């Protein structure tokens, strides 16, 4: 058992905690200076072959998931767990202690203590507990012979604030571990009107089956006047066996989640193809076509031929397109149409609405993280714990009335676990209350 005791003592020490936290802080710097996750050749080119080899051995290129960094985190966790197990019982004992069982000698020797001597028939004595209650202290009482001991306390549970903070760190770690093993991170590009049933892992681009189908119905980019992107928006549909289960427009900061898998708007790709929607105004019949640039397409039911014959582009972005449109043997119509706007065309006595837009693929970040809720709970616990640890103090007061032949000796005592100056002010207010009661 000697080894066990030694180990236990090692892991309960706060020195170890300070050492581990220092090591984490210092080693974390390395990964902010040496670029992470680059191919091996990058390190050879930038640091030389020897150093690159050395980096490789120490997993520097991926240091935040290296054995030694995770080892430090493990050490921190073990330290936290054992330290808490070691200390918590004593803290719980203080929290749940029967403070009325406290010996009267100890009460009389507290740092905050004040003594009064009055005749036993003093009229102010009877009202003292009520006075304390009015000052915000609900007291309990113990009577022995003719002596009385009153006790009141506040925020005793704040003593576990520190432990909640420590627990919160472990909860966050558990959440992160769950996310790591049961979740995945990936991405996928879906061209408009197409769908996919898989994403590609961020780590090695291996395919990940989603278990359902996701379709991109449309993708649009809005720009500010100065050309900066303002909004990326994808309309997505979730399908299973051609049955529509869910539809949502997503934007950056507003993802879609289905069966624990979340799709985030991340990027896009512009094609030279176009999507043309044609509606027959009389019948309401409508259809969408993918038009490769400068290729003729037909809608046989309506006897239509059409195509995009020219575009005006800003970089990758088509601003306007020139549409060629022909119904049967009627003369062809040619219009310039701003991207993603509609126009009406009449030909041969029929009227059509046309909308042309450049075709895009939406780039989605795909993530499944069943641990994220634990991480968030951990974060919440941490804030609650920090608040309790720093802003609430466990304050206790005792009022002891000792009766003997000479009269009544009254003791008012108090203790606090932190912030003595504030407690001193509070205590002197109580003293004054008692003073007043006993002089009137």
């Amino acid at each position: 058992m000697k080894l066990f005791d030694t180990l236990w003592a090692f892991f309960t020490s706060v020195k170890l905690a300070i050492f581990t936290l220092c090591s984490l802080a210092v080693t974390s710097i390395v990964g902010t200076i040496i670029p992470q996750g680059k191919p091996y050749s990058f390190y050879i080119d930038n640091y030389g072959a020897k150093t690159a080899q050395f980096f490789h051995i120490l997993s520097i290129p991926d240091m935040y998931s290296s054995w030694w960094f995770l080892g430090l985190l493990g050490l921190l966790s073990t330290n936290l767990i054992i330290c808490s197990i070691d200390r918590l019982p004593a803290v719980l004992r203080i929290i749940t202690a029967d403070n009325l069982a406290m010996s009267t000698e100890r009460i009389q020797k507290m740092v905050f203590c004040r003594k009064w001597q009055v005749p036993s028939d003093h009229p102010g004595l009877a009202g003292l507990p009520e006075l304390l209650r009015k000052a915000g202290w609900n007291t309990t009482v113990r009577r022995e012979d003719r002596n009385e001991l009153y006790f009141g306390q506040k925020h005793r549970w704040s003593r576990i604030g520190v432990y909640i903070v420590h627990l919160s760190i472990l909860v966050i770690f558990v959440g992160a571990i769950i996310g790591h093993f049961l979740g995945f991170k990936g991405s996928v590009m879906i061209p408009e009107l197409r769908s996919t049933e898989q994403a590609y892992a961020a780590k090695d681009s291996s395919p990940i089956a989603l278990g359902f189908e996701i379709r991109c119905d449309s993708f649009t980019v809005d720009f500010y006047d100065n050309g900066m992107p303002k909004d990326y928006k994808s309309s997505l549909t979730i399908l299973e066996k051609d049955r529509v289960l869910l539809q949502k427009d997503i934007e950056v900061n507003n993802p879609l989640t289905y069966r624990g898998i979340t799709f985030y708007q991340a990027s896009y790709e512009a094609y030279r193809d176009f999507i043309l929607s044609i509606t027959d105004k009389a019948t309401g019949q409508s259809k969408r076509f993918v038009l490769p640039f400068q290729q003729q397409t037909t809608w046989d039911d309506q006897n239509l031929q059409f195509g995009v014959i020219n575009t005006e582009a800003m970089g990758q972005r088509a601003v306007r397109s020139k549409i060629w449109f022909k119904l049967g043997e009627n003369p062809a119509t040619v219009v310039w149409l701003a991207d993603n706007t509609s126009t009406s065309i009449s030909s041969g006595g029929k009227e059509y609405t046309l909308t042309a837009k450049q075709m895009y693929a939406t780039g989605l970040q795909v993530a499944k993280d069943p641990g994220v809720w634990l991480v968030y709970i951990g974060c919440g616990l941490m804030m609650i714990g920090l608040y309790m640890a720093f802003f609430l103090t466990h304050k206790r007061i005792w009022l002891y009335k000792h009766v003997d032949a000479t009269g009544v000796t009254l003791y008012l005592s108090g203790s606090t676990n932190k912030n003595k100056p504030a407690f001193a002010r509070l205590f002197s207010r109580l003293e004054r209350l008692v003073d007043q009661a006993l002089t009137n």
Partner: protein
Amino acid sequence: MDSSQLLGITTFTYMFSTLLYVAVLVFKASKLGSVATVFTAMAWLIQTAGIALRWVESYQMGIGHAPLTNMYESVVFFAWTIIALYLFIEWKFKIRIIGAFATPFAFLAMAYASFSGEIGKEISPLVPALQSNWLIAHVVTCFIGYAAFAVAAALGIMYVIKNKSENESRETIAGTLPPLPVLDDLIHKTMVFGFIWLSAGIITGAIWANSAWGTYWSWDPKETWSLITWFFYAITLHARYTRGWAGMRIAFLAIFGFVSVLFTYYGVNFLLSGLHSYGSS
């Protein structure tokens, strides 16, 4: 009157505040003290108006957003928070002379924001990733934390000066500084306050990242440095609570901690090749 004029004026009024407080300190002209306070409070109100006006102007430009979204705006907010916090401490603890050490931080921040060629001052529209309320929460919480650490560092400097002069038992400007135990207590209080806000800042940042990219933590240099800073203050708090560190040691840690804050905030953008695009514009 537009916001940039108001904020430009603020730079000079904060400089003047600094001079007033330094005069109080150097010439022991305690009568000047209330003048310095009133003046600083007015300068702060002007800055508040400037920030509010900038907000309104962004709406007039049709790209309305809170003025907290680029380096310039964040530095201005940083200065604003330092002064707010300082004035609060002065009011709460009735110690005026801290101003001689705290207002220079605000002045330097404003001067840097106004005159540095590195940072653009124009109101620019938000790229999609930045259009999030979590971003606002993230910036506000982080900068309240940073400002608290700035004030803690100012107090740390005061502590070191005071301690030196007591050792040499000479009558110097340190005579006007508050007693060492008071400074020690204030350093601790501001660090605790900063630690809570920094924690909230890291958490809101993680939530924002998760809502935008599906990763709450990606170890990019900015995130990592904020964590290093957080570790630093956690270590300091443990050293104090469990090993009884106080006085000069904690004063030095308060100063070094702020160096780490500055590196997180400024150094990472300009010295390391980060991905945190926000802030480098």
